[in-house]
């Protein structure tokens, strides 16, 4: 057994959003090696198979996942299409640093860092951190859901907020 500080498994995604910081962090464990997770993130044919939720089909328009490379992909869903793009400041052995934006709001650029921690026994922990351009940008990202589109997200949130605030 090579598992050290990892008695708990993140079988489901755990999320952390500190109210005062424009940061969202996520942790999730996978039955795979760090190399396999890197490939699933860097190989466009693999990446495109999992990047959207069920209702979304993604098409990669541009993909150069290397240090100083860039990318652009389009997500198709019932309500239309949304494009996302960014650059890769660093693609290392077990770490990917990328900028990310929704093209509807190209000035709100987030810096995303992902790294893969080898837990041993064929398990790897994915750590992902998004540093947004502002608290509002972070909230907007959380509220909208990048893949379903900001407007749809707002509509759903409006429905959520409608209850208690109207009373």
């Amino acid at each position, binding site marked *: 057994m090579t598992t050290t500080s990892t008695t708990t498994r993140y079988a489901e995604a755990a999320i952390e959003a500190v109210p005062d910081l424009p940061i969202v962090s996520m942790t999730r464990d996978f*039955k795979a090696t760090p190399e*396999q997770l890197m490939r699933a993130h860097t190989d466009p044919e693999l990446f495109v*198979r*999992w*990047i959207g939720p069920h209702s979304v089909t993604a098409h990669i328009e541009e993909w150069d996942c290397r240090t100083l490379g860039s990318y652009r992909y389009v997500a198709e869903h019932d309500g239309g299409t949304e494009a996302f793009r960014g650059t890769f400041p660093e693609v290392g052995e077990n770490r990917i640093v990328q900028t990310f934006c929704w093209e509807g709001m190209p000035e709100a650029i987030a810096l995303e860092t992902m790294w893969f921690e080898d837990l041993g026994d064929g398990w790897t922990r994915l750590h992902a951190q998004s540093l947004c351009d502002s608290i509002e940008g972070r909230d907007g990202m959380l509220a909208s*859901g990048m893949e379903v589109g900001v407007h749809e997200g707002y509509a759903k949130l409006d429905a959520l*907020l409608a209850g208690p605030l109207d009373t």
Partner: protein
Amino acid sequence: MTDQLSRVFAALSDPTRRDMVARLTDGDASVGDLAAPYEVSLQAVSKHLKVLEDAGLVSRSREAQRRPVHLEAEVFDLMTTWIERYRQRAEERFRKLDAVLAQMNDQLNADQNEELQEGTAS
């Protein structure tokens, strides 16, 4: 309702207002209590409170003389819901990633078996 949402976002985009909200999680407080730690006028604090009130984040009791400021916790419950929805969407993607990784493993095993068989055949 989108306006309401924008107001919540805008209200929380200010560090002083976020600090006020954080302090109100401990319990209701008077405007004077809330203003104490800041080097700003009472009017400035009242202005911040007005923004929080308009966003539905806080309310002020009309009964008591000191009109304590009360945090409307339901709004934060909604935010928790909203973060949870974001998490669920991420989890949905990660389950698809699980499937992709499983296929990669299967492929690897199949390749290894093939190599093994080729090895014994020769």
